[in-house]
């Protein structure tokens, strides 16, 4: 009996560790809520997609940042631009493979320009694109294209200290 209990516990634990919660971003109201939830934290918001090779290459470094700073006032937010029809088939398996154990988001806007312009009016939508927010919710730096771990870390440390 004890062995069965331990076995069940292990199953539950492993399911919990690798469970994926992927939420849609439908409107600017959702972005307002997300932004509000990040107040008081230094946040790195990364726009990516499974079809984007540089995004996929950059992904492990972002996970490394998360693991190194998750115990500080740091939040990592992934927003995928994969189409909603491919969340189950492509995004979730990718997140599982990379051991992402926190809530991530996907673009579900009717008009994608609203999302792009909300984030940055000068951004044309090229990915990967990364924005770092300070604890007051202001963007302190933005990165277009794949960047190195050290570049992100430098900016995060500036904001944490």
């Amino acid at each position, binding site marked *: 009996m004890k062995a069965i209990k331990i076995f069940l516990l292990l199953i539950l634990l492993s399911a919990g560790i690798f469970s994926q919660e992927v939420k849609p971003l439908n409107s600017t109201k959702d972005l307002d809520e997300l932004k509000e939830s990040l107040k008081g934290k230094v946040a790195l918001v990364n*726009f990516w*997609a499974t*079809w*984007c*090779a*540089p995004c996929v290459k950059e992904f492990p470094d972002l996970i490394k940042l998360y693991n190194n700073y998750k115990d500080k006032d740091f939040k990592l937010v992934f927003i995928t*631009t994969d*189409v909603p029809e491919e969340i189950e088939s492509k995004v979730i398996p990718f997140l599982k493979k990379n051991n992402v154990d926190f809530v991530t988001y996907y*673009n579900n806007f009717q008009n*994608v*320009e609203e999302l*792009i*312009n909300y984030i940055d009016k*000068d*951004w*044309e*939508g*090229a*990915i*990967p*694109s990364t924005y770092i927010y300070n604890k007051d919710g202001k963007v*302190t*730096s*933005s*990165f*277009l*294209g*794949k960047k190195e771990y050290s570049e992100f870390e430098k*900016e995060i440390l500036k904001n944490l200290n």
Partner: protein
Amino acid sequence: MFKKTILPALLLFIISSVTIYAGKGPGDKIEDFTLKSVDGASYSLSNVKDSKALVIMFWSTECPNVQPYTGRLNEMTKEYSGKGITFWAVNSNSTESYDDVKAHIKAHNYAFPELKDDNNKLADQLGATRTPEVYVINSDNVIVYHGRIDNNRDASKVTSNDLKNALDELLAGKEVTVKTTKTFGCTIKRAD
């Protein structure tokens, strides 16, 4: 004291840490440029004669958001060439060689030339950052439309034919109504 020393330094820091390619948009005139095709032919803006407009499409051999547009752009080129519109695909990616482009053209049987933008000079002049990203230049070398081809890479789900609309309005002698649009795409890989 703060205003004189710290504030300018702070502003400089903020500006230097944000990646922005100051470019051109609708209403701006563009300077002449020359690009080479993979077979060595030169394509210059100043040599585009008898065209009502030139469509410049920032292109890639690798970007998965470009490939679904092959059929649509081939059809559009055939349809609009007869109406006086010229289409050029421009490859500004430093990561893609002349040989890559040559193989890409052969594989896709493009109805338009794919030109190499060495050292991303044209991408820099226009401030292009994405593939696909299009600019429509009228016969006065002024940008009249900048943005996406349409609003869905899946042709069956397109509800807004932005590039076509701009070309139709231009051909009808009207002002382009929607001059700028955005969508997601791959970054242009500039030379270091």
